């Protein structure tokens, strides 16, 4: 009897002690969030103040139009180089798992993705009407007759000029309308003589000026097919190179090596003009003390090449939908915003300074706004007008690869090598490299 009780007590204590020692550390497994279905759209872009800001406004506009929609637009900021690298890595590996729903790609690079991985992108032909956008944007954003991209900003180029320096040199803004490069060099020399200021600033490693010249004549580094190098015997390129050398020899160019020096060049008043894309407007206006001293005139054209116009483009990018879950929702989202929303484009102009390429947007109020910084000039309207004149070219797959070759060859050219040899050598290098 007594023994039984003792045993019972001992057993009870043992059970308790065992319970104590086998205590487990239960960490709740809250990792691995489940996929949100198709209600979330991930966007990759690179400039918080520019394209990311534009996407945020598009998201707001979509919400306003579809208050019941549960679509969540998740914008992720990545450096442009990172986006390119990640896209390449993901697409090379044949997986779309780590890729976004919507991605922003620079027009110069777009074809290298579309042609290499057409299946990775979602065909937007049913959502987007190419005719609603500036012609020149359609080349880079479509492939094989299918529209893959929704054109975003216009890289329409203009010539920003300092009116005060020009006046000192004896010129008016009217004298610079629709000029060619010969005239530009002549004015530049006068400005240098009268004011001591350089006409423009250039980075020897960036041939953006030559690209603009070549496109203004409806030509490119590559032929229509987008893959064959088009250097030797390219009249537009030849004239552009010659003009480039003339500019340099005229000693009206201030050299720079990077973006901050480039911006510093005009902000400090060291140069009298900037031939570049409209996206520089914000940087120009950043120097408020120069208000009223600037004007924008049409991009100078090549004088001898046939078909050359006073309009060109530099940069610019477009939105693409990846072939992943949620692509339809993303396409619908783009259709309702960047694809058609005129009001959104007015907002982009006034709040972000981004000029779109939707033709209908040009009729909007914001586009008619006069800008006091530019002496009351309606620069957005002007840019929109020039946008429509930009020749449509196929940037092809190898723009930057060829430019790297040209940068070297241009130095040889400046050092005295004959232009035909320069282009022939470049062509030979390009053919071996890009094939």
């Amino acid at each position, binding site marked *: 009897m*007594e023994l039984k*009780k003792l045993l019972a*007590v001992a057993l*009870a*204590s043992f059970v*308790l*002690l065992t*319970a*104590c020692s086998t*205590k487990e*550390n239960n*960490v709740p497994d809250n990792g691995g969030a489940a996929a949100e279905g198709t209600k979330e759209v991930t966007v990759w872009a690179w400039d*918080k*103040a520019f394209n990311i800001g534009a996407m945020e406004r598009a998201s707001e506009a979509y919400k306003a139009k579809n208050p019941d929609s549960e679509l969540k637009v998740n914008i992720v900021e990545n450096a442009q180089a990172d986006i390119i690298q990640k896209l390449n890595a993901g697409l090379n590996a044949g997986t779309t798992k780590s890729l976004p729903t919507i991605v922003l790609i620079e027009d110069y690079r777009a074809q290298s993705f579309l042609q290499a991985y057409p299946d990775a992108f979602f065909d937007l032909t049913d959502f987007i009407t190419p005719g609603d956008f500036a012609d020149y944007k359609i080349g880079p954003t479509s492939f094989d007759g299918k529209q893959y991209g929704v054109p975003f900003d216009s890289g329409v180029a203009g010539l920003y000029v300092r009116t005060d320096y020009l006046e000192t040199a004896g010129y008016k803004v009217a004298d610079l309308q629709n000029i060619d490069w010969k005239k530009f060099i002549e004015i530049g020399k006068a400005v240098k003589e009268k004011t001591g200021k350089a006409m423009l600033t*250039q*980075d*020897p*490693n960036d041939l953006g000026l030559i690209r603009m010249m070549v496109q203004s004549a409806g030509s490119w580094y590559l032929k229509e097919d987008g893959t064959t190098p088009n250097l030797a015997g390219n009249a537009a390129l030849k004239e552009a190179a010659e003009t480039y050398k003339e*500019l*340099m*020899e*005229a*000693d*009206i*160019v*201030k*050299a*720079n*090596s*990077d*973006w*901050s*020096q480039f911006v*510093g060049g005009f902000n400090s008043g060291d140069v009298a003009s900037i031939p570049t894309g409209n996206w520089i407007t914000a940087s120009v206006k950043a120097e408020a003390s120069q208000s009223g001293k600037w004007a924008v005139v049409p991009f100078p054209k090549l004088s001898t090449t046939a078909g050359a116009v006073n309009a060109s483009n530099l940069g610019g990018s477009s939105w693409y939908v990846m072939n992943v879950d949620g692509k339809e929702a993303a396409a619908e989202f783009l259709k309702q915003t960047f694809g058609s929303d005129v009001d959104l484009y007015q907002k982009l102009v006034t709040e972000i300074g981004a000029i779109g390429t939707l033709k209908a947007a040009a009729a909007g109020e914001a586009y008619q706004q006069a800008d006091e910084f530019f002496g009351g000039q309606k620069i957005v309207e002007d840019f929109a007008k020039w946008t429509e004149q930009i020749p449509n070219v196929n940037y092809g797959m190898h723009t930057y690869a060829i430019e790297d070759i040209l*940068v070297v060859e241009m*130095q040889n050219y*400046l*050092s005295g090598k004959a232009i035909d040899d320069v282009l022939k050598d470049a062509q030979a290098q390009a053919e071996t490299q890009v094939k």
Partner: protein
Amino acid sequence: MKGFLSKFKYHGLFIKMFMVTLVSIVSVALLTSLVTIQMSERLFMNTFSITNSKIISQIKANFESFNYSVVTATNNVLQNGVIKGFLTSPEMNTIGSLKSYYQANQQMERIQSNVAAYPVTMTITGINNKSYSTDSSYWPNSLYKLQNSELTMNTLVYPKRLLYQLDIENISGSFDVDPVIVASRALMERISGNQYGILYFAIRESDFKRFYASFTSGGNDVAILDRSGTVVSSNRQELIGQENHDLLRYAQEMEQQDLKYMDVNVLGKSSLVLSEYLPVYDFYLVNMIDKKEVLSEMVDFKTVALICVGIVLVALIIVFLISRRLTKSLTLLARQLPTIAENNFDNYITVTGSYEIKELGKAYNYMLDELNDYIKKLIQTQKDQRNAELSALQMQINPHFLYNTLASVKILVQQGNKEKAASTINSLISLLQNTVSNISETITVAQELVNLKNYVFINHVRYGDQIAVNYFIADDCYGYHVPKLIIQPFIENAFFHAFQERKDGHIYVLISREEQTLVCEVVDNGIGMEGYDHNNPAHTSIGTSHFFSGIGIRNVHDRINLLYGEDYGVEIVSHIGEGTRVKIRIPLQKT
């Protein structure tokens, strides 16, 4: 309240036992868990600090390999004539400067491959105000500002050193404040010592922290401090740029005293701090481990406490039940013991409970048995003693009386009064027959009356009949029993002591019933007793009074007391010159 107290009194043992066990169990549980938790904490902290010092050396290695890349790139720049030319040559025409920019770019791109593994921007500035940056999109935002910044000043103060500094002055863009860590070094000719420019390596803090960020976790933070105590980099964003002198002091103390870790209070939290000096950076790498947060992941205090409380509760319940059982029988025993005396030692206790208690109960009951036996024997002995006394008393009376009577008969015979002598002898025979034959038993009042009359007759024969004896017996009293010769001694006293000064007198014998008491009174009208205390008649010593001396009056009283208890006995009331009244009280007895 009183009931509660008395209850408490009986449960005293249980409460004491239980309280002692309660306190012991609770303190053992508390102490054990505290000591265990502390031991495991210490063990964990020790392990943690060992692991973390390894992690710190890993981080240090990361930093060193980064520094190695930077140093290699720096040496390449220092030895590069093209770059020197770019930074020193005076202003030239467009083509010339374009060429120098182009060449600088070529050289810098080649040199940058040294640091290509890291997201670093290289910037060079020269005494000719030319500069080149591999990627100026985030640093520097303005060359002019850079030239006048503290960063550049510090670099020029220590031209031969590669300086690592936190820079928030020169970051470009108005958005996100993402500070930059800049390694800078003055560019100078080796032999002449002429400075011709400055080389900067800028890395975003967010990229810099990758060297250690993967080792951090909640409660396990890393901060990089410079010599002034400014937090250069940390996985805790809010600390960056702040000065933390406490942390710096700890780091310096650890370096000087070669401590492995310190247990201190950092940012209001009790933390374990590990530190490593990074000499090439002149930074302190500080690892802060928030003990509370880290421990909460390992030791689940709540569960431990709950289990302890559970065990204690269960143990207490078990202890309660067991000790309750143990003490219950004791309590019962304690309750029963005080009632023993109340009932002539007849309260045997119920034997229950554990073996020990049972034995105790048995022993106690055995003791009661023995006690009762003893008491019975004692009572028997006392009774025997009384009977012996009584018979001794009667034996005492008889020769005395016999002597007197025989003396009287002798006188009668001498006087020749044969008849009277014969009747006296008859009375004496009857008296002797009644008394001698049957000593221990009682007789009825009627028989006693016969005895008395015989006795009185004998006395009358001897001393004459001047002293009259009258009997008043209540009718219902004849049948009651009285001890033999209980009244006779008092009549004898009255005869021989009450009437010493005169010859005539009266003696009355009254027998009546008062409720359950038989009252026999012997009243005389003699001289009364000397020495009678009127104020305290009960204390008048009957035995010492000369009035009763010689005859066993006192024995009578004692005998009645012995036989019937204290309520009964002999009372005497006496007044000098008026007489004496003796009252004998005995219980009514039919047998």
